[in-house]
């Protein structure tokens, strides 16, 4: 119970510190609004913020879905095809040196000001951690399990797909889950960068608008909603991966008892 309250207490402490800074340095609201001003802005613009949040959440979720799918396909392709490993893997790794920021204007140019460019942006950010984590997991299957499977199937080619499904993919799930968690953490970055470069809706778009109009309290309110969305997304993916890896959680429980 106390452990659950701890982050809440930390949050209260930070809010107090925030208020103290505002009072102590007599900062004007357009530089740093006091917490209660932000809370008021949140209530006043609740409808607007919810609408923008819906847009950003949709972008994040669709980016996560398509990015993860693309990452899985890439990992499987790399596992199955030696040619793909030779021709694509170095390029894939090198491509990560390109900052996604730099691509954002291009994506907006190609996919428009709507949601599509943000989803593609989020996909690009999400794809890599998922692909790398899953590919790593697929390569690290316990050699003993694969040998057992080969003896059981007589090494017949028509059973290889089942070995991939029942042994390799299942064994790679923990690695995939950690890749997916990283992806969930970076998904908001992709969506918001897209919105900053060119958009007509979304929390990132609203932050820029509020900033330009010196509505600093609204900007903070949008930022807090964005943070809540990001935390909720991460928590959801974390809960999903725990469910997926129930057998692993059980093994931890038994080793501690």
């Amino acid at each position: 119970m106390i452990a659950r309250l701890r982050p809440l207490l930390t949050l209260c402490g930070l809010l107090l510190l925030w208020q103290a800074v505002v009072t102590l340095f007599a900062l004007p609201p357009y530089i740093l609004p006091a917490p209660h001003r932000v809370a008021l802005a949140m209530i006043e613009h609740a409808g607007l913020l919810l609408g923008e949040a819906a847009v950003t959440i949709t972008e994040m979720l669709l980016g996560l879905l398509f990015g993860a799918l693309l990452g899985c396909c890439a990992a499987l392709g790399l596992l199955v095809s030696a040619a793909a490993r030779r021709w694509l893997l170095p390029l894939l790794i090198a491509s990560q040196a390109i900052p996604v920021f730099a691509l954002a204007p291009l994506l907006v140019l190609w996919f428009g000001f709507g949601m599509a460019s943000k989803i593609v942006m989020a996909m690009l950010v999400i794809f890599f951690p998922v692909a790398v984590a899953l590919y790593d997991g697929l390569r690290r299957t316990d050699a003993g399990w694969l040998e057992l499977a080969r003896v059981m199937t007589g090494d017949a080619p028509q059973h290889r797909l089942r070995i991939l499904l029942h042994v390799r993919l299942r064994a790679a799930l923990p690695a995939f889950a950690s890749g997916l968690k990283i992806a969930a953490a970076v998904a908001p970055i992709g969506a918001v960068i897209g919105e900053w470069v060119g958009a007509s809706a979304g929390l990132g778009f609203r932050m820029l608008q509020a900033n330009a109009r010196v509505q600093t309290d609204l900007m903070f309110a949008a930022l807090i909603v964005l943070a809540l969305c990001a935390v909720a997304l991460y928590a959801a993916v974390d809960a999903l991966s725990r469910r997926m890896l129930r057998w692993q959680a059980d093994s931890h429980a038994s080793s501690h008892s």
Partner: protein
Amino acid sequence: MPLHSSLSPSPTPSAGFHLAGPAFAYGHHPVLAPFALDLAPGETVAILGTSGCGKSTLLRLLAGLLPGGSPALAGQVAWMAQQDLLLPWCSLLDNVLLGVRLRGEQPDTGRAMTLLGRLGLTDWADAFPATLSGGMRQRAALARTLMEDRPLVLMDEPFSSLDAITRAAMQSLASALLADRAVLLVTHDPAEACRMADRVFVMAGRPAQLKQIAVLEGPKPRDPLMPELLPALRAIHAALATTGAAT
């Protein structure tokens, strides 16, 4: 390079196995000399040797796990390794049914449950392997091996990670349940050989050769402390000691 090795088992498994193969090498390092070994149904042959002598290589070659290993035995072999190799995300029941699932056959849950019951694991059929002791996990691995229902069972030091008491119990259980199969058992434990085997070979040399050391009479599993077994036990120890000194 492994020489082209064609293992030639006899066509009818019911008549037993004639296991033979040419020399085997890893690159330019000779590992195995040409070998020939007959195994009757219901017979257990133990192969002993120091670590790294090539006994595991022989077993893996027969299981078709090495390049140059032959598919001639494919579908006739069940494999039991030192690690239980239970899949941690599957219940014991699903682990026992793994071979059936991988071959896309209809799973016979009734038979799997019967096997788990014979190994005293009925109450743990739905449990994940991580929640079980080492002995129970190895019993589940034995159930999975029996579920495969193959005439030839290859065992690679299957009980060496267990404590002495559990190991003795497992040896007796395995010996009783595998009574009608041909079993090739690789081990480093002379007492295990005396408890479970009908014939004992020692593997030594480079390339390694098989040498028959003892023929053991009487029903299995035996008590390795029986006085009648003492000469065989001595002979095995002596053979292992000389090979140990030579390498």
